[in-house]
């Protein structure tokens, strides 16, 4: 008992720690807009420049939840988010048709590329068609690394196999079950082919020996759209906030930022803004 | 009747289906030293916890200085008592801090704490250990610290639960002597629990014999040890010789009891034909070789027999003998044994006074 009592300093420390958190939690809830989006959007770093601009303009606070495409859409359909920004057109259309998501508007696209060993043993450089490229890989039984995680990228890959009439199976077909970055690492180690979005490829480029072998084909375009959440999906949906964010994404300010984003870091833009266009007009 | 310091009324303590303690009344008088003795598992520690307000009885009432102690208001009264347990339960701190603990819990300032502790550290001969960590103490030193902690509180009631039983013999002897001196000087009302009759005999004014949760006998220490009321108590307080017999004749002042292998004159209010047990304490039996007994003495009873076994027993010898089918235990001092020529297998005469026999009725 003559010893120093350390409970008081501990208690003070607790208060110091907790006060700022309480203040934050005490803010009016309607100020928050929950954006459900895909990991690739977040990983590209684009939202890190767009979100602060939106917050400054509107006074809203954005909570960006970046998860897999399937989960991002499911969260919005459950009413756990206020607005969705994803890149899976066929899935999106299904949700819009069901009335779960509203007012689908195109925002931008980036593109996928097929990369592989610079020596290109499957000779896919000989074609411009992505479907044909995959057919060549399967015929040559050269290793192909798939994400296998039901992500947007994986879904694109599956639809290409389907168009090629091939069910990819065998020791040459490896499923990583991980994100794009990890999948690139595996493809690089195993000296295999893979499909990746350009942004992630550029980010990892320094560490990869794989080369871009096929690009520019229309099915490889990755179109992002923004959708508002139907207020009927659940309780406490911030409908005006969601609409404000969707409107912002197609506004000229945001579109201008998208147009130049990435030039500084990679020497080329990562995205192409397409607000106001129709799907048929894109690519080629 | 003088008001008791502590009074327990109509007490019953149950643990599940088991009744650990049950008695109608027990009073602790101010200034006395009361020993509660009994075998292990008799309920002695439960009794002490009740007295210390550390446990609620299942039924019954506890009065402190005539006032009923209500449930939940124990603290103020608990602070007028102090407990010492079998193990010296000290905190991981110095001897001084441990001794000071009770006073600090009562919010005394450092100066008064010091004034009250120092004399007790001296009296218990641990002043030189004041700065030692409690963990580094021997058993005896630790128990002395525990006693100092209790005594420094100047309690109205001191409760000691087997305070010597975890100590080795030399430490136990030393502490017993010191504690006896302290208790005689201090006049603090003390209740102590022990299964050791010597401790009780040495320290106590009154003794309560607790067996199987019931108080079988309560009285002055000398009375209880000399005159146990029944066989169970007799066995516990150390009557080794118990002879079953029948009352033969009753004359004025003297009664004759026959038993297997002889008869004896005893004193007591008995009727012929009553079945009794004669209790003899070993120190009350005198041994001699046949033909050499002191015939002039007033001893009424003489039994002839054979020595079965002689065992060294502290300062004297414990002699087992058989007199016509009846077994007796006697003590004899070491020099007397050598002088008298008593030996194993030899003939012997056991003599005892009629007044030395304590008679218990058999049912």
């Amino acid at each position, binding site marked *: 008992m003559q010893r120093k009592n350390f409970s008081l300093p501990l208690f003070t420390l607790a208060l110091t720690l907790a006060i700022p958190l309480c203040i934050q*939690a005490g803010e009016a809830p309607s100020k928050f807009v929950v954006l459900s989006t895909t990991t690739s959007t977040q990983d590209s770093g684009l939202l890190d420049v767009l979100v602060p601009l939106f917050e400054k303009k509107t006074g809203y606070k954005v909570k*960006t939840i970046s998860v897999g495409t399937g989960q991002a859409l499911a969260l919005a359909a459950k009413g756990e988010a206020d607005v969705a920004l994803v890149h899976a057109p066929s899935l999106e259309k299904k949700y819009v048709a069901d009335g779960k998501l509203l007012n689908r508007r195109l925002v931008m696209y980036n593109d996928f590329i097929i990369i592989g060993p610079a020596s290109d043993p499957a000779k896919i450089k000989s074609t411009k068609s992505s479907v044909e490229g995959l057919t060549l890989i399967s015929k040559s039984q050269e290793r192909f690394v798939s994400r296998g995680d039901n992500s947007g990228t994986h879904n694109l890959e599956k639809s290409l196999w389907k168009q090629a009439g091939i069910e990819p199976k065998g020791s040459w077909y490896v499923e990583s079950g991980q994100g794009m970055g990890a999948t690139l690492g595996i493809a690089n180690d195993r000296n295999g082919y893979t499909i990746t979005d350009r942004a992630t490829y550029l980010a*990892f480029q320094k560490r990869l020996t794989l080369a871009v072998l096929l690009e520019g084909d229309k099915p490889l375009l990755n179109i992002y759209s923004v959708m508002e959440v139907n207020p009927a999906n659940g309780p*406490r949906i911030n409908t005006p906030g969601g609409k404000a964010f969707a409107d912002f994404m197609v506004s000229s300010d945001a579109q201008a930022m998208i147009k130049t984003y990435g030039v500084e870091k990679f020497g080329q833009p990562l995205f192409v803004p397409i607000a106001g266009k129709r799907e048929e007009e894109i690519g080629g | 009747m003088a008001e008791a310091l502590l009074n327990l009324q109509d007490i019953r303590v149950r643990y599940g289906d088991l009744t650990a303690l049950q008695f109608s009344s027990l009073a602790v008088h101010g200034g006395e030293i009361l020993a509660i003795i009994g075998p292990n598992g008799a309920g002695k520690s439960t009794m002490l916890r009740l007295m210390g307000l550390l446990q609620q009885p299942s039924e019954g009432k506890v009065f402190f200085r005539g006032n009923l102690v209500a449930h939940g208001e124990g603290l103020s009264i608990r602070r007028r008592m102090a407990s010492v347990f079998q193990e010296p339960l000290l905190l991981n701190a110095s001897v001084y801090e441990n001794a000071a603990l009770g006073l600090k819990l009562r919010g005394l300032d450092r100066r008064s704490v010091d004034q009250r502790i120092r004399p007790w550290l001296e009296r218990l001969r641990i002043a030189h250990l004041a700065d030692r960590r409690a963990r580094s103490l021997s058993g005896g030193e630790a128990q002395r610290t525990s006693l100092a902690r209790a005594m420094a509180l100047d309690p109205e009631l001191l409760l000691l639960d087997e305070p010597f039983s975890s100590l080795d013999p030399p430490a136990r002897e030393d502490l017993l002597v010191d504690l006896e001196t302290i208790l005689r000087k201090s006049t603090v009302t003390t209740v102590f629990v022990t299964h050791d009759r010597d401790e009780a005999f040495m320290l106590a004014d009154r003794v309560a014999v607790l067996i199987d949760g019931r108080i079988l006998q309560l009285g002055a220490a000398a009375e209880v040890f000399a005159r146990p009321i029944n066989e169970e108590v007799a066995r516990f307080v150390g009557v080794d010789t118990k002879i079953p017999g029948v009352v033969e004749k009753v004359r004025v002042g003297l009664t004759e009891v026959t038993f297997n292998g002889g008869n004896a004159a005893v004193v007591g209010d008995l009727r012929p034909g009553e079945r009794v047990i004669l209790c003899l304490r070993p120190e009350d039996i005198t041994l001699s070789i046949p033909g050499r007994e002191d015939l002039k003495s007033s001893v009424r009873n003489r039994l002839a027999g054979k020595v079965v076994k002689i065992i060294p027993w502290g300062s004297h010898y414990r002699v087992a003998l058989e007199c016509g089918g009846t077994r007796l235990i006697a003590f004899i001092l070491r020099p007397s044994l050598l002088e008298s020529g008593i030996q194993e297998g030899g003939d012997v005469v056991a003599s005892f006074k009629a007044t030395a026999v304590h008679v218990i009725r058999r049912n």
Partner: protein
Amino acid sequence: MGLIFDGIREAFRLILTADSEVLGITWLSLQISGTATLLSLILGMPLGIGVALGRFPGRNFIVSLINTGMGLPPVVVGLFVTIFLWRSGPLGFLELLYTPAAMIIAQIVIALPIVAGLTMAAFQTLNPNLSLQLLGIGASRLQLLWLLCREAKLPLLAAVMAGFGGVISEVGASMMVGGNIRGQTRVLTTATVLETGKGNFEIAIALGSILLLITFAVNLILTHIQQREQLRWPKPS
């Protein structure tokens, strides 16, 4: 190898230049995990003490619950806390999902059984009769509790260390209930995952190093207290 050195150099650069984002993330990690640990102590210690010293029906059930809870996978905790905090969930009206408060809740669920379990173990090492003895020299209930805590100080410190270490280094639950939102719920672990995913290995290594440094420092301080106590109070020879 170069990567690791680059990472460590980056870590030093970020710390020395007081990079505001990294500092923010670090501070938030400390705030969230510190608060969660503290609340776990406030809730878990009485629980552990109660279970260790008390005898009441259902006690064994609670002990099993605590022991199971000590090994709860954080991801499972994250999942259930998320479901409860969803707008459509039972606690949706609190609007806590994707806030530091939600992370604190999840971390409490993780740390509470650890703290309660180790507190229980700490008190069970004390002599059961010590309570009686302390009451027997006039301790009030509160004084008793304080003295017992003081006796069990060293193992209690271990409970603090284990609790804090468990939550500050946890990623699964923080990711799920916090959402790894920049400037709001991004902590060292989730930021490390994110930067790894983005391919920014230097920053990921830097963040990881800062996390290691924090856990190391906290454990160093607590171990120091523990060892000092032991040195000062030698065991009997």
